[in-house]
C-alpha cells in the first residue's frame, strides 16, 4: 500500500488567527484600552484617591486640580474616585448581561437551527418580534416593569441581547448542517447533544466571539443611557451614566463633571469596537494579512 507522506507541518489555524490578531494594530490598541479600564475598575478600592461617596461641603463643584484631578461634584465628592467606582458597576452590568445573553441565545439558537421544524419556526417568530424593539426601548420597558436594581438591569440588558444571538447562532448552525460532517457524526451514532455542542458550537464560535465583543459595547452603552434617565442602580452608588446625569445639572458651573465619565464611556466603546473589528478581520480567512 502506498504510504502517502503528509506535507511539512504548517502553523495550525488557531495559532494563525492569534498571529493575525497580534499583527492587527487596532485590535491590540483596543485590547489595551479595555484591559486598562477593567484593571482600573477592579483596582478601584486601592487606586481611587478618596471614598466615592464621601461629601466635602467646603469643596462643592471644585475645578480639576492636583488634589482632585477630575474636580468635585455638587456634593463635594471626588469625581475621579466616582468614575473609577462607577466603572465597576457599568462594566460589571455590561459583562454579566452580555455573557448571559450570549449563553442563552447561543444555546437556543443552536438547538433551534439543528432540529428545525415547528419549534424552530416559533423561535424565529419570537426572535423577530423581540428584535423589532429598539434595544433601549426594550431595556427601558423591562426596568420600568421590574424596578430599578442591579439584577433587574442585568436581566433587562440580557433580554435585549438574547434574540440577536439566537438569530446569529441559528443561522451559523444551519450553515454547518449543510456540511457533511454533521451527517458523518450522525452515521457514527453520536448523540444530538454531542453533535450540537462538541462539533457545531466550536465551528461557529469565531463569529459569536466577534459579535459578543460588539454587543458588550452596546450593553455598556445601554446601561449608561438607562442610568442617565435614572433607571439604573439607585444613588448614591456611582455608575457612569449616573455621574453624567449629575454633571448635567451643573453643566455650566462644572462641565468637567459630565465630561470625564463621558470620556470613560467613549474610550470603552472605541476600545471594544476596535477589538470587535480586529477579531472579525483576524478570523476571516479571505481578509488580507
Amino acid at each position, binding site marked *: 500500500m502506498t504510504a*502517502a507522506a503528509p506535507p511539512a507541518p504548517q502553523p*495550525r489555524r488557531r495559532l494563525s488567527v492569534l498571529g493575525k490578531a497580534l499583527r492587527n494594530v487596532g485590535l491590540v490598541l483596543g485590547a489595551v484600552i479595555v484591559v486598562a479600564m477593567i484593571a482600573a475598575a477592579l483596582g478601584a478600592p486601592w487606586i481611587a484617591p478618596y471614598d466615592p461617596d464621601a461629601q466635602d461641603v467646603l469643596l462643592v463643584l471644585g475645578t480639576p486640580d492636583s488634589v482632585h484631578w477630575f474636580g468635585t461634584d455638587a456634593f463635594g465628592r471626588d469625581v475621579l474616585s466616582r468614575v473609577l467606582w462607577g466603572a465597576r458597576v457599568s462594566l460589571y452590568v455590561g459583562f454579566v448581561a452580555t455573557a448571559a445573553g450570549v449563553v442563552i441565545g447561543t444555546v437556543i439558537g443552536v438547538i433551534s437551527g439543528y432540529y428545525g421544524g415547528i419549534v424552530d419556526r416559533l423561535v424565529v417568530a419570537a426572535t423577530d418580534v423581540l428584535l423589532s424593539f429598539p434595544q433601549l426601548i426594550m431595556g427601558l420597558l423591562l426596568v420600568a416593569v421590574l424596578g430599578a436594581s442591579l439584577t433587574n438591569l442585568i436581566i433587562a440588558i440580557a433580554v435585549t441581547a438574547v434574540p440577536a444571538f439566537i438569530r446569529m447562532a441559528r443561522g451559523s448552525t444551519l450553515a454547518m448542517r449543510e456540511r457533511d460532517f454533521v451527517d*458523518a457524526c450522525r*452515521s457514527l451514532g453520536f448523540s444530538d447533544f454531542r453533535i450540537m455542542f462538541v462539533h457545531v458550537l466550536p*465551528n461557529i464560535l469565531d463569529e459569536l466571539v466577534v459579535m459578543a465583543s460588539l454587543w458588550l459595547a452596546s450593553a455598556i452603552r445601554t446601561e449608561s443611557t438607562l442610568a442617565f434617565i435614572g433607571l439604573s442602580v439607585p444613588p448614591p452608588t456611582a455608575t457612569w451614566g449616573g455621574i453624567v446625569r449629575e454633571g448635567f445639572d451643573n453643566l455650566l458651573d462644572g462641565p468637567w463633571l459630565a465630561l470625564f465619565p463621558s470620556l470613560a464611556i467613549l474610550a470603552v466603546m472605541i476600545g471594544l469596537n476596535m477589538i470587535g473589528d480586529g477579531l472579525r478581520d483576524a478570523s476571516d480567512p479571505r481578509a488580507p494579512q
Partner: protein
Amino acid sequence: MNAIPATPLLDIRDLRKSFTSRRGWPIARTSVVKALDGVSFTVGAGEVVGVVGESGCGKSTVARVALRLQEADGGSVNFDGADVLEASKIDMRAIRRRMQMVFQDPSSSLDGRQRIVDALGEPLRVHGLASGAAVRPMVARLLDEVGLPNSALDRYPHEFSGGQRQRIGIARALALGPDLIFADEPVSALDVSVQAQILKLLETLRAERHLAFVFISHDLGVVRYFCRRVVVMYLGRVVETGPVPEIFVDPRHPYTRLLKVSSPEPDPTRAVAMTFQEGEPPSPVDPPKGCHFHPRCPLAIDRCRVESPVLRDVAPGRSVACHLAT
C-alpha cells in the same frame, strides 16, 4: 460466477422517499420529487455493489435513507436480520457500528476543529470500544491500515491533501469495525491519479476485512474496476441490475447503453451502436408518464409512454425494467 448468499447482508425492498418543496408567491405551489420510487436491491456479505446513474437519480438518497440520516416514506431496509427503518434508538446504535458511510467530499465531512486522533478516537470512545490511553494506539492502527503515518495523529484535517483526507474519512468509517460501507462517490472529488490509489486501498480493505460495499458513483469506469454487481438507477427507479462484466458487455436497458456509450471507451474505433436523443434528463419534479426514460429512448413504442415497466428477470442474476428487453 458471483453466487449471492441465501440471506443477503443488506436487503432493500421497495424503498420510497419523496421530497416536497413549497415555492411561489403569493400562492405557494407544492412540488413533490420522488427521489426513490420503489427501489429494491440486495448486497451479500463481502459483496461490492455499484449504484450508478446521473446526478439527481436518487442514488445518494438510497444510502442516506438506509443509514437513517433521512427517514424513508415507505419500504424496508433489512440489515442482517434487523429491520433498520423500524429500529429503536438503542438498536440503531448497534446497527450503526456495522453499517458506515464514506462521504464524497472529505474536507466537508471532517470537523476542521478536531485533530485526527480526536476525530477517529471519538467514535471509539462514544461506542465504548476504547478509552483513555487505549484510544491513541487504536487510532494509529487505523491510520496504518489506510496508509497514513503515525505523525498524522496530531494534525488537523486542513494540513492534508484531498487524497489523504479521504483516507482519514475511510479510517473513520472503519473505526467501529463495520461489515458494510456505503461509499457515496468516494473518489469523484479527487484527482485521477489519486482516485486509483484510493480505489486500490478500498479493494485491499475489502479483501482483508471481508467488507461489503454499496459503491455509489456516476463513473462507469470506476464501477467496472471496483464492483462485482451493479444497480443502474434512473429518476428514482432501478432500471437494470446484474453482474458487472455482463452488464458492460451486453447492456439490455437502453439507458444502460446510453451510459455505456457516454463513458470513454478503451477502443475509440468501435462504432457507437445507437443514437440517443440529446439533452438533460427530464425533471424529477414532473417525470414522464409510463417509462421515465421514453423521451430519450430511440426504441420507445406507444406502450412505453403509458405503462411503466417492472423490473423482471431476463437471465440468471440479471433483471431489466424495459418492455422491449429480452
